[in-house]
């Protein structure tokens, strides 16, 4: 962006080049999206085609009095906040370490990126196997070191299931934070640190008065991108617990998916999806507004 135009003359070429991308986007994103909004106001259960029809806000009313919707909403918040906080802390620590000079830095950086490219299905399966209540590695190790007497069925009991999946997602996503923050750290000019040092700033002072402020835009952007991604991710939950045991790992996308896939209730599933989208948009706009505000100060 910010480059001067090649020609100012009005012509159709730029539009022609954009058209295929735009046409496809309209056909496979915008049309379906409006369809979902329409479904959300309809009774639409796949195996009851006779009853299909417009029902106004009925699905929304159902959602607001549905205890499962409420608990999925709470789980969604717990899910987003805990994952983002830990991914950020671990990612930041990793970035600070990788920003130092040491032998083997390139290899360490590459290896740390591995979880990030791991397919969600593989992530879910690997962790499910490690959490296994009978033969899983984690139980075996805990028992070996005498930390537990009986094996813990991590994914099969309500008290540990959510936390266990959260750890798997922290694993998968922290490299993204690390790499974005590392790029940010490397973009801070050395002179800033040198100037601060000449002014007599201690190491801690340099961290809080140079590193953090300089890194702020990257931190904010990365958190925003990750929040959206984490809020929408459901495949790992589906494969690790399928929402169970009970409904203890239901988040809004999981609920919406299961309603559509198992219940064939496209109407209510769409309503949940629309509400989730509205929620995300609120978070995003609130967040962006805050960033703009803090930049004005």
């Amino acid at each position, binding site marked *: 962006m910010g480059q001067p135009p*090649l020609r100012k003359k009005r012509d159709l070429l730029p539009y022609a080049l954009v058209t295929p991308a735009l046409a496809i986007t309209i056909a496979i994103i915008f049309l379906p999206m409006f369809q979902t909004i329409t479904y959300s106001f309809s009774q639409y259960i796949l195996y009851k085609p006779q009853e299909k029809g417009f029902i106004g806000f009925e699905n929304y009313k159902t959602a607001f009095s549905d205890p499962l919707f409420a608990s999925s909403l709470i789980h969604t918040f717990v899910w987003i906040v805990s994952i983002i906080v830990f991914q950020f802390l671990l990612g930041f620590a990793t970035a600070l370490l990788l920003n130092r000079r040491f032998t083997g830095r390139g290899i360490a950086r590459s290896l740390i990126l591995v979880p990030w490219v791991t397919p969600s299905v593989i992530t879910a399966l690997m962790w499910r196997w490690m959490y296994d209540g009978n033969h899983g590695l984690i139980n075996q190790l805990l028992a070996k070191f005498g930390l537990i007497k009986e094996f813990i069925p991590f994914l099969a009991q309500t008290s540990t299931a959510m936390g266990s999946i959260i750890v798997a997602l922290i694993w998968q996503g922290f490299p993204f934070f690390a790499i974005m923050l590392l790029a940010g750290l490397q973009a801070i000019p050395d002179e800033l640190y040198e100037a601060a040092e000449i002014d007599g700033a201690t190491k801690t002072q340099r961290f809080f008065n140079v590193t953090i402020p300089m890194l702020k*835009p990257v931190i904010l952007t990365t958190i925003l991108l990750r929040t959206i991604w984490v809020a929408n991710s459901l495949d790992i939950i589906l494969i690790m617990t399928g929402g169970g045991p009970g409904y203890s790992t239901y988040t809004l996308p999981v609920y919406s998916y299961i309603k559509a896939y198992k219940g064939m209730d*496209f109407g209510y*599933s769409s309503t949940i999806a629309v509400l989730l989208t509205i929620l995300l948009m609120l978070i*995003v706009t609130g967040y962006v507004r805050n960033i703009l505000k803090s930049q004005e100060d």
Partner: protein
Amino acid sequence: MKRTRHPLRMALGTYLPILLIVLFAIGPYLWTFISSITPETDLYRAEFRFFPEHPTGENYSRLFTKLDFTSNILDSLLVALFTALLGLGITVPASYSFSRFKFKGRNPLLMQFLIINMFPIMLLIVPLFVMMRIVGIMDTHFALIIAYSTFTIPFSTWMLTSFFNAIPLDLDKAAQIDGCSRIGALVRIIIPVAMPGIVSTGIYIFITAWNEYLYAAILTSSKVRTIPIALQNMIGEFRIEWGLLTAGGIISALPVIILFFFIQKQLITGMTAGAVKG
């Protein structure tokens, strides 16, 4: 900051934490690999062994003999390859336009590609399912290629625009002075210069398509079965064959990790360009 550190401080302050983080990152893979070369019966023995007494390739060979894993790989390959080609074919011209021309509606259009990237998959999956049933392309490679384009096209547009923006305008101008048309400049000058970025974006699309699970679970069933679906299907109702599953996991993750190592530098440059500049 070039400063020599005390070796002991270096070891405790840098190497030890890095080692722990690296172990956390690749530990699950190591364990998955060890499990995959352990005979199935040894996996469920009461006494715990870290390494198998008799490592075996039996899980891997069973994948291809007992199960039809070859056709799963082919399905995944086909879908991922064509998703990447379609994505690039459509977004290279669009990104060139966004990068090189100033036209009415440019900024809202570009913004629109960023916003749709945030939409939850659940907003699209049901109508796409209904649409594909009506058109009659359920359970085909084509259905998945279309579905995957919903997230690859917006992403690719942003990546490529950022790569094109990094190419100086003087190159276009020089080409035009030499008598190239604007399309000629794109094909003969800009595309070759941007090739590393284009290839990286293509490989990234390939990786995301190769890894995708949710659309595949809903849009395909028996005729087309990509690797993630095949792996998920190995989880039986009562019993999970972890030997087979871990072997399948290693085989499907390996190409992705290798491909990723080739493009990581380019990809990170493209992704951080916007964020770092702020």
